C-alpha cells in the first residue's frame, strides 16, 4: 500500500516534470523496473576482461550476470547495441557541483548536510549523464574550516532521496585558507575547532562528575545509599586524544554542532581534506594525525601539491586530484620553464589517486583520463583513476565502477572507445533503468549543431547564457576608471573571447614579464 502510494507520487512527479522541466529530455525513459538485458558489441567490465559481443543481465537493478552467450530470462527486455561499447560509467570522486551553493559562511559547519542543498534538476547532473558519469560524490567546497556532510548520488532522480547512493558520505575539512583567512588564521581556526571540541567534552564530563560527587555527598549527608553508577553513554573511540569518562555523558546530550566533530575524531566519518599548495599538506596531515582521522582521510589536492608527493606517499592516504593536470613553473634564477605532469608524479610514487573533472560535460572524466594516456600513463591506470579507484575511495567498489555480478545495474553505452574524442554517449542505464538517450537529448543537439531546443526551459537557459556572459564594455570601463594600469593587464585580455577554463598556469600572469622586473622573483 505504502509502496503504491510512493509510486503514484513519483508518477505524478514524472508527469509534472515532463510538462515543465528541462530534464524532460533525459528523465524517465522506459521504466523497466530495473530488469533489462544489455547486449553490446564490446563490454568493458573493468574487472580485467573486455568481452566482445557481450551480454549484461540486470535484474532488480543489480547486475546478475555478464559474459558472452549467457542465458537470461525469456521475458527480459533486451537492448542491443551491436556496434557500441558498454561501459560501467565514470565515477566522480568529489564534486562541488549540483548544489545550490557549495560553501557555507560559518567556520565549523559539520552539522550541515549537502542533501539540503542538492538540486536534482541542476543542469550539472544532466551534463554528467551526457558525459557518461554514473556516480558523483557531492561534497561542500573548500571555502570552509570544517564543512558539512556530503552525499554520494546518481546523476538522476527527481528527489535527493531517489538519487542517493550513500548518505553522509563524508565531511569536508580545509587546510586551504577560507576567504578572509590566511594560512596562519586557518590553522588557528582548525586548532580551535578540535581544541574547542575537546574543551567542550571535558567540561561536559567534569560537570557530570561534579554533579555525581555532589549527589554522593548529599546522599551521605542524608543517610541514603548513593545512586549506583549508571553508564548512559559510551566511551570515546578513536585513536588520538580521548576524553576520559565520556561514557558518563549520554550522546544525545552532546550538542548537535559538536557531535559530528566527535565522530570525526573517533574515526567514524570519512574526511575529505582539501589542500591547495604543498605547504597545506603538512597542515592537513598534522591535523589528521593529531585528531585521529588519518585513516579515514582522503586528500583533495590542488595541482601544486605534487611537490609534497613523498610526504603524501608516506601517509598512505588516497588522493583526489583537482584542477589542472599540468604544473608549469619558471625557475626564478635561470628563467627556464619546467612542466610537470601532475598525475604522473602520483603514479610514480605509487599513490592511490582519483581524477576529478572540471565538470563541464565536454571536459569531463573521459577527458582527464585521455590526457593522462596522452602524457604516457597506461590505459589501465588512467581508466582506474576515473572509475574503480574513486569507487574504492568511497567504499563503494562492490557496487560501482565495474560491471560484475552484484554491482549496480549501471551501464553506459558509448558509440566507440569511451576515451576517444569522437565517441559519444548513446544511452545510460542506471540500476537497470534507461535514464539517458542521445536521440532525445535536445541540449546535446543544441550544443553540437546549434539547433534551438524546443521547450521553454531551454529558452530560459539561453537567457541565462546572455546574462552569464560578462559585458566586457562595462567591465573595461570600470577598470580604466579605477586608474588601473592597462599595461599590467593587457595580456589577460586575450582570453576574453575564450570560453575555456584555462589550465591553471601559474605563470600565466607573468607572460608580459618583459615589463616586470619582479616577474622573476615569483617562481610561483
Amino acid at each position: 500500500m505504502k509502496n503504491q502510494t510512493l509510486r503514484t507520487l513519483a508518477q505524478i512527479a514524472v508527469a509534472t516534470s515532463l510538462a515543465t522541466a528541462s530534464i524532460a529530455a533525459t528523465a524517465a525513459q522506459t521504466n523497466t523496473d530495473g530488469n533489462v538485458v544489455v547486449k553490446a558489441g564490446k563490454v568493458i567490465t573493468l574487472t580485467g576482461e573486455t568481452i566482445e559481443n557481450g551480454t549484461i543481465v540486470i535484474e532488480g537493478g543489480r547486475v546478475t550476470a555478464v559474459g558472452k552467450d549467457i542465458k537470461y530470462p525469456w521475458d527480459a527486455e533486451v537492448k542491443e547495441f551491436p556496434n557500441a561499447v558498454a561501459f560501467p560509467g565514470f565515477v566522480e570522486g568529489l564534486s562541488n557541483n549540483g548544489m545550490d551553493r557549495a560553501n557555507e559562511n560559518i567556520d565549523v559547519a559539520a552539522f550541515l548536510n549537502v542533501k539540503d542543498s542538492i538540486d536534482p534538476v541542476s543542469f550539472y547532473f544532466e551534463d554528467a549523464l551526457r558525459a557518461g558519469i554514473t556516480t558523483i560524490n557531492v561534497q561542500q567546497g573548500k571555502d570552509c574550516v570544517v564543512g558539512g556532510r556530503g552525499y554520494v548520488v546518481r546523476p538522476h532522480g527527481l528527489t535527493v532521496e531517489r538519487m542517493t547512493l550513500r548518505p553522509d558520505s563524508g565531511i569536508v575539512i580545509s587546510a586551504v585558507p577560507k576567504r578572509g583567512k590566511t594560512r596562519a588564521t586557518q590553522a588557528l581556526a582548525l586548532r580551535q575547532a578540535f581544541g574547542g571540541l575537546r574543551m567542550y567534552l571535558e567540561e561536559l564530563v567534569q560537570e557530570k562528575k561534579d554533579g555525581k560527587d555532589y549527589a554522593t555527598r548529599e546522599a551521605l549527608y542524608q543517610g541514603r545509599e548513593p545512586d549506583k553508577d549508571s553508564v548512559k553513554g559510551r566511551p570515546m573511540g578513536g585513536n588520538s586524544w580521548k576524553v576520559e569518562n565520556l561514557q558518563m555523558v549520554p550522546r544525545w546530550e552532546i550538542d548537535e554542532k559538536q557531535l559530528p566533530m566527535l565522530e570525526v575524531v573517533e574515526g567514524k566519518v570519512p574526511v575529505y581534506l582539501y589542500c591547495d599548495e604543498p605547504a597545506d599538506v603538512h597542515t592537513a596531515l598534522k591535523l589528521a594525525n593529531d585528531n585521529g582521522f588519518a585513516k579515514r582521510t582522503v586528500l583533495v589536492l590542488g595541482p601544486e601539491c605534487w611537490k609534497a608527493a613523498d610526504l603524501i606517499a608516506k601517509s598512505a592516504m588516497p588522493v583526489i586530484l583537482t584542477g589542472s593536470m599540468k604544473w608549469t613553473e619558471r625557475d626564478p634564477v635561470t628563467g627556464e620553464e619546467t612542466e610537470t605532469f601532475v598525475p604522473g608524479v602520483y603514479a610514480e610514487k605509487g599513490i592511490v589517486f582519483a581524477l576529478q573533472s572540471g565538470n563541464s560535460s565536454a571536459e569531463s572524466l573521459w577527458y582527464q583520463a585521455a590526457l593522462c594516456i596522452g602524457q604516457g600513463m597506461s590505459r589501465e591506470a588512467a581508466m582506474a583513476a576515473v572509475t574503480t579507484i574513486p569507487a574504492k575511495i568511497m567504499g563503494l567498489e562492490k557496487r560501482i565502477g565495474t560491471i560484475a555480478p552484484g554491482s549496480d545495474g549501471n551501464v553506459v553505452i558509448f558509440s566507440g572507445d569511451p576515451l576517444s574524442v569522437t565517441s559519444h554517449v548513446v544511452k545510460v542505464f542506471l540500476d537497470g533503468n534507461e535514464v539517458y538517450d542521445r536521440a532525445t537529448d535536445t541540449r546535446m543537439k543544441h550544443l553540437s549543431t546549434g539547433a534551438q531546443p524546443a521547450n521553454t526551459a531551454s529558452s530560459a537557459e539561453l537567457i541565462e547564457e546572455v546574462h552569464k556572459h560578462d559585458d566586457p564594455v562595462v567591465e573595461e570601463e570600470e577598470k580604466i576608471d579605477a586608474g588601473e594600469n592597462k599595461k599590467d593587464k593587457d595580456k589577460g585580455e586575450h582570453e576574453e573571447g575564450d570560453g575555456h577554463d584555462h589550465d591553471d598556469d601559474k605563470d600565466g600572469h607573468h607572460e608580459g614579464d618583459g615589463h616586470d622586473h619582479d616577474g622573476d622573483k615569483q617562481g610561483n
Partner: protein
Amino acid sequence: MRPQATILALASLACVTHLPTLGWASLAGTTPLVTEDEDQACAELPTYVLRAEKLVVRPGKVLENVSVLVRGGEIVLISPEIPLPEGATEIKGKVVCASFMDPWSALGVDSNVLNDKSLNEEARVSDALNLYSGDFLRQQALEAGVTTARLQGGYRGSTGGLGAVVRLDPELDDPSTAVLLSDANLGMSVGLTVDSGARLVRGADGSLQFLSGDEPVDVFDRVSAIDKLISKLESGAAYRQAELEYAHKLDEWNKEIAEQTKKLEGDYKKAKKSRDKDVKEAEEKGKEFKEKKYKESRKPKQPKQDDGKAALASVAEGEIPLVVEVHRSSEIRNLLERTKSFGRLRLVIAGGSEALSSAKELAEREIPVIVWPALRGNSAQDEFASDDLSLAGVLAARGVPILLGTGGRGEDATRDLPLLAQMAIGHGLDPEVALRALTVDAARTFDMAGSIGTVELGKDADLLVLDGMPLMPGTNIEHVFCGGRLAVSNKN
C-alpha cells in the same frame, strides 16, 4: 631531517625559557609528522673537521689555529689538535665564525600572512611557512651566510602573532624540522602607516612613484594603539593571576571537600539511623517525608580558557619577548613610559627610526632595537621620515643594544642582511658590534643562545668559513654550514 641533537637542544631550551603551557598545546605542539629514526638521521650527516687560522668563538674572543669537530650537526670538540676521524671531511679556512641570524625577516612566510590584519595573539607565523617556494631565496641567504631567521607576520595590523625562528636550509621542507622555535616572541606594531597595496612604479622622469596612495594612520589611533597594547598586557597579566588564584582556590576547595566527605562518611551511620527514624515517623503520621538539605560552598569557577591571553601572560611575565615595531620618537617614549610597570617584560623595539631620542632609557633598560638599515628614498612613508643609515652606529655608541634585521616585509631582503650590516658599518657602526648583532646578540634576544650564535661546544654547527674577518671589505664566504650540513661550498 633535523638531527636529534637539535631537538634535544630545543627541548632543553624549552625548559630554560618556560614556554607557556597553552591549553591546546598538545594539538599545537611541534611533534614531527613523520617520526624518523633520529639516530639514523644523525648518522646521515657527515663529520667535518674545520681547521681555522682564526676561530671567532664570539665577537671579541678569537682563538688562533684551532680545529672544530662537527658531528651529527653539532660542535662536539674544539681543540688545537684534532686528528681527522675516519670518513670525516677536512676543511681549512682562514676564519671560522658563527653564521648569521636575521632577527626580523619574512623569508618563507606566505605574503598574505605578512599583510594579515586579522592576526591575533594566538596566531602563529610558523603555521604560515611555505617551504615549497622560494628555495632559491633560502639558498641565496645561505650563500650570504644567513642560516637562521626570526619570522614575523602581520605588519599591517597591530598584532603580528607569535613569531618563529627557522632554519633557512632549502633542503628542509617540513616545518617540524625547519622551525626551531614556534613561539619566539609576540609581535605587535604601533603607528605604522598602512600600505594599502600601493605600488612603486618607475615614472616618467625615472623617479619612483606611487600608483595609489596609502592610508595614513590617525594620530589619535596611534596614541590609543599604545593604550590597547598596554591593556592587552594587563589582561594577560590578569589572566595569569586569575589562573593562579583559581588553582589556589581549587586546591583549597578540594581539601575542604575531602574533609567534608571524610566527615560525612564518618557520620553516615548516624545520619542513616536518624533518616530511618524520620521516615518511619513520617509514615506513621501519614505525612510526607522531607529530606534534609545538604549545603556546601560553591566550587570555584575556572577562568575561561583563552590562548591569546595565555600568550600575553607569558609576554607580561617575560617568558617570551615582545617585539614592537615602532618608529616615531613620541610613540617610543610613550611605549617605554607605559611598559615600565611590567617588571619582567622583555621588550624589543623593531625599526625604531627615531629611537635616538630615547637612547638613554633604552640603554638603561637594556632594550634591544632591531635596526632596519634600509635604503629609502624620499617616497618613504612618514614613520621612516628620519630614517638614517647611521642609526645603528649612533644607537650602539650610546650603549643601546642593537640588532640588524631586514624589516619583515619582503621575502627576498634577508639575503642582503650582510650587505645592510656592512652599510651600517660604513655609516659608523662598530664592526664588532655589527657582527655581534648578527650572531650572538640575535640568538640571545630570541632565546636561541643555547644552540646558535657562537662557536662553542654543544652548539649547532651553524658556521661560516671565510677568507677574512666577517663583514670586512674583500672578505668572501667559502663554506656555510647550516645545522651541520655543508650547505654552501664556494671553494672547490
